[in-house]
């Protein structure tokens, strides 16, 4: 494999530029060909009895048949991977979780997963300040990760989770409107402008000339059909391009 460090950073760079669930999904699909996983799931852990794993899933690339089976059988309460997420902050292999939480019910979940092409997996746990847990899990028919690949996939999982949360939050707010073709730099200038910074201030912050800032803001105004900066900011706020 070529330099896995660089490959991981390339994936992260693309993940950071994603703006929708579909784009995050596509990036993770593509990354699977590099790291050798076939399926992935990004989701929170249910905090109440009434919730299932799929209710809390943010982005799922899991086999449908397995998701349905898992849900119907209530495997959430037996899955050693779920139990391990709740007790560690370090990434782990599914097979290691199964060894740590050895019991017949857990073993049956792992056995059945194998039948759906999920022989082993790599899971990155997340623990929020408010006590909520979440995880990114990568499953495969044949998973073999070097130390560097583990570290790379760990980092990919962190950025995938962050993006999944961000796009889910936008969806929850009902903001589906595309950003109107604004560039990242134009959006950044608008944000600083909305924060009360002058073109000169913004230029200092972004290490570009104030004239360039003015040009970005003018271009943003055109794309937003705004006649001045105040209207640009108002329109960008309304469309959820800036918050």
């Amino acid at each position, binding site marked *: 494999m070529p330099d896995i*460090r660089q490959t991981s*950073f390339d994936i992260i760079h693309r993940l950071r530029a994603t703006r929708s669930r579909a784009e995050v999904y596509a990036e993770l699909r593509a990354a699977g060909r590099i790291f050798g996983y076939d399926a992935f799931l990004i989701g929170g852990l249910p905090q109440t009895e009434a919730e299932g794993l799929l209710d809390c899933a943010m982005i799922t690339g899991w086999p449908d048949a397995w998701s349905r089976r898992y849900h119907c059988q209530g495997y959430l309460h037996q899955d050693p991977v779920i139990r391990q997420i709740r007790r560690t902050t370090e990434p782990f292999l599914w097979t290691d979780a199964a060894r740590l939480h050895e019991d017949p019910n857990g073993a049956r979940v792992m056995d059945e997963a194998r039948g759906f092409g999920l022989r082993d997996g790599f899971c990155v746990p997340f623990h929020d*300040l408010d006590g909520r847990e979440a995880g990114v899990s990568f499953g495969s028919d044949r998973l073999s990760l070097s130390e*560097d690949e583990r570290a790379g996939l760990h*980092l990919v999982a*962190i950025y995938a989770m962050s993006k999944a*949360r961000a796009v889910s939050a936008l969806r929850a707010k009902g903001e589906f409107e595309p950003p109107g073709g604004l560039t990242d730099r134009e959006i950044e200038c608008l944000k600083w402008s909305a*924060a009360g910074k002058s073109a000169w201030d913004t230029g200092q912050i972004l*290490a570009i000339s104030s004239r360039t800032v003015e040009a970005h803001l003018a271009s943003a105004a055109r794309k937003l059909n705004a006649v001045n900066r105040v209207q640009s900011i108002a329109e960008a706020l309304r469309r959820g391009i800036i918050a």
Partner: protein
Amino acid sequence: MFKLISGQDGSEDPNLMDKVYRFRHDFFVEHLKWEACRKPDGREIDAFDTPECYHVVGLEGDEVVSYSRLLPTTRPHLQTHLYPEILKGAPAPSGPRIFEWTRCAVAPSKRESSRGADAVSGPSFTAVAEAAEFLGLEGLLVQTHPILVSRLMTFGWDVEALALPCPYDGSTILPICARLMPETIDTHRQVFGLSGSVLDIDTFDLPRRRRIEAPRRRSA
């Protein structure tokens, strides 16, 4: 209440700095068992506590309850001088508007659970973001556990990983540059339910403060 104290000003308030160094010793040596930092007088001070560093101190009455230290990257700092191997040869940003966030601590007695949804942790993170903005910083270098990396993103920092996570001292560590964005402080306030500023800027010695004047290019 949170105070921002420059290393220079700290020398004029030896009582407060004494409490700060004792708090650091209690936390990092006694609680986290960083034996290499143990000092016979119970005050954890090192070569990086210079007049050029900044202390963000959380106080409840006279008691220190949280702490963070900001080190200038234009001088020796931990990433360059203590564990450069974490970067695995990758370049790290530096310059007058990049500081390094070290020695982040919240008094264990103030943390209601090990997961940290308590009354001090949130404001102490917010105080660091406010201090960074007040000092006109562009971003902070941090070497931390990956779990904190996703939290910083949730708090509104733009986090750039500088190297892959690696095992360090029985845990995992990752060097990052967390950049202050226009929405970073508001996001902190939303996440932690804060109505306004937590950093008591009035106590900062205004005539003698050294705001960073000369911006440098990001790629510095």
